């Protein structure tokens, strides 16, 4: 874009068109014309049958409730829709995480500059005991607790 503005300021319209064509030539990965390939649904992978356990698992991961049969139908449709991506040939193409992936991350010096903000941190907690957050019991060993001896 920068190149284009500079040219506008300096050159005639004809010149500009030539430069633009040249520009297109260099960014050749962007097609000149949009293309349209009809997808043969027969070629797509079949949507697998989802049993109850899988639906439950998906609900848990997405924190979305599918509620009823209609909801599950919509889930099938969503999978079918996403399956169209299988038609894109990605052979030998590295996945792109970020358009800035050639830039390197900023690295800070190892100094203590933060912390000691107990009050701010605990503001959001609904339950606090002796400056600890209180949470439901977590992943603990399945060891029978002897109630008598612990008292």
């Amino acid at each position, binding site marked *: 874009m920068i190149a284009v503005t500079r040219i506008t300021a300096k050159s005639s319209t004809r010149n500009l068109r030539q430069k633009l064509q040249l520009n297109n030539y260099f960014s050749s990965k962007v097609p000149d014309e949009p293309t349209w390939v009809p997808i043969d649904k027969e070629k797509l992978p079949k949507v697998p049958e989802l049993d109850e356990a899988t639906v439950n698992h998906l609900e848990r991961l997405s924190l979305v409730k599918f509620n009823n049969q209609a909801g599950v139908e919509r889930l099938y449709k969503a999978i079918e829709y996403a399956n169209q991506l299988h038609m894109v040939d990605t052979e030998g193409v590295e996945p792109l995480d970020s358009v800035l992936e050639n830039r390197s991350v900023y690295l800070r010096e190892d100094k203590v500059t933060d912390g000691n903000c107990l009050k701010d*941190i605990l503001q959001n907690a609904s339950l606090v005991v002796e400056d600890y957050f209180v949470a439901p019991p*977590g992943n*603990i060993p399945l060891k029978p607790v002897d109630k008598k001896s612990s008292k």
Partner: protein
Amino acid sequence: MVYSNRISLRRLCRLSFLVSRHNRHYSNLSYNPREQEWRSVVGLEIHAQIQSESKLFSGASTKYAGSTNTQVSIFDAAIPGTLPVLNRHIVEAGIRTAAALGCKLSQMSKFDRKHYFYADLPAGYQITQQRHPLARNGKVKYLVYNTDNWNKYSWKTASIIQLQLEQDSGKSLHDADQNRSLIDLNRAGVGLMEIVTAPDFTDGEEASSFVRELVLMLRRLETCSGRMEEGALRVDANISVHRPGEPLGVRTEVKNLNSVKSVGRAIDYEIKRQIGELESGREIVNETRSFDAQSGQTIAMRDKEKLQDYRFMPEPNLLPVFLYDSKSVPMGVDPANVIITDHLLQGLPSSPSKSYERIHDDHKISIRNCVILVNEDGLLKIFDEIVERRDAKALINFLIADFLGVAHARDINLLQCPVPFRHIAEVFDMKTNRYISNDNVTQVLELMFDFPNKTPGEIVKEKELENIQDLEVLQAECEKTLLKHPNVVQRWKVGQQKEKKGRQDPMLKLVNTTMTALNNRANPLVLISIFEKLLSKK
């Protein structure tokens, strides 16, 4: 508890495996013929806290044992809108460690999010490096040894699959009575390196020997304190058993092993348990287990999310980390944003196993003594500095038996040894030349630490601790002893053969009495020869 006591306890913990006589578990495994029909396969994941002032992605302190939730920045508490800023020192420490473990450094590494729901992980994901770790493909040679049987040792090599940087989680205190967990986020976000090994181990002894080698290496690099009792290094072990020729069995993961001894015991217990289950016709379930050090058993963990799906995705808030050497840095790159590896890779310490080999080969010293020498911070350096032109075996015995005892009793950190090494050498020489008696060595060493500005020679002169060389003085003292103890002389005359069991050798009794009278300022061998002369005249 007094602070200084804590340090010596810590040191005791570190060295306790060397003197332990109680790890019986080692002996059982290899001799049971039934268990020979099984093969066990063990791989390790080691989480080591990287020593740093501040956390991996925030400026909060990493100090151990701070008061609850005070070392937490708003980023560590996952307040929306906060962003991670990478700590250069931690990346550099990871690079040094990876290089020392023989890994190939990745020119570019990236961060990923690993999702799981847990109260001590406020963001709901951990920032880690799954697809593009900092380094891959390492090899570590290590010494397999058994503190119960020092004659049986061997050299093995383990492969390291990858070394990645990641965040530590917070700490949970489980309050079973009130059915709740208490969460402290001080540890949340501390920089860890996860070191993943190939399944190259066959039993607890190999795995724990590897962990010892690794801990020592990290301590030498000063990238991790290696204090397993503080949770600075934690080991997860993946364990499975199968019959020879058959595919690998279903594995279980024993999590959070927090001592070298527990690594060995937990793995051996788990192998036995799995064999027992399979032979009774039951199946092994892929599950997470914890180790109870008191009972020596592994216990299944209550794991609600059986179907763990970590949903790894690229961390969108962090750009990749690029490593260059000073020649390959591209033009116009901001030095604040890249890491130049040349100076980091200079002066890496040699590995503990190389030290073992070197001392063992150069000086023909027993493996046990090599291990003690290398495991005690700073002792190897003292040895190396003063061993030249001295008897290595005698020197090592002196350092371990005499010197270390005094140094430990005074809780001296040998890495910052308060006395010049030549003073230590001088005491050793005085001992070997019999200038002072063995009984006075401890006293001289103690005085050496008391007066670091004086040479041991001056101290001995001042305190009159050197052996009395004048034979007449010695003989006079010996004669006095003989007069005082006629019954012992009588016993000597009767002869040793008729002595009752358990009674002291009369000669020993005479020498000891005389030594005490002389304040240990004599060579016992000289006294014996004097006594023999005197007694034969009678």
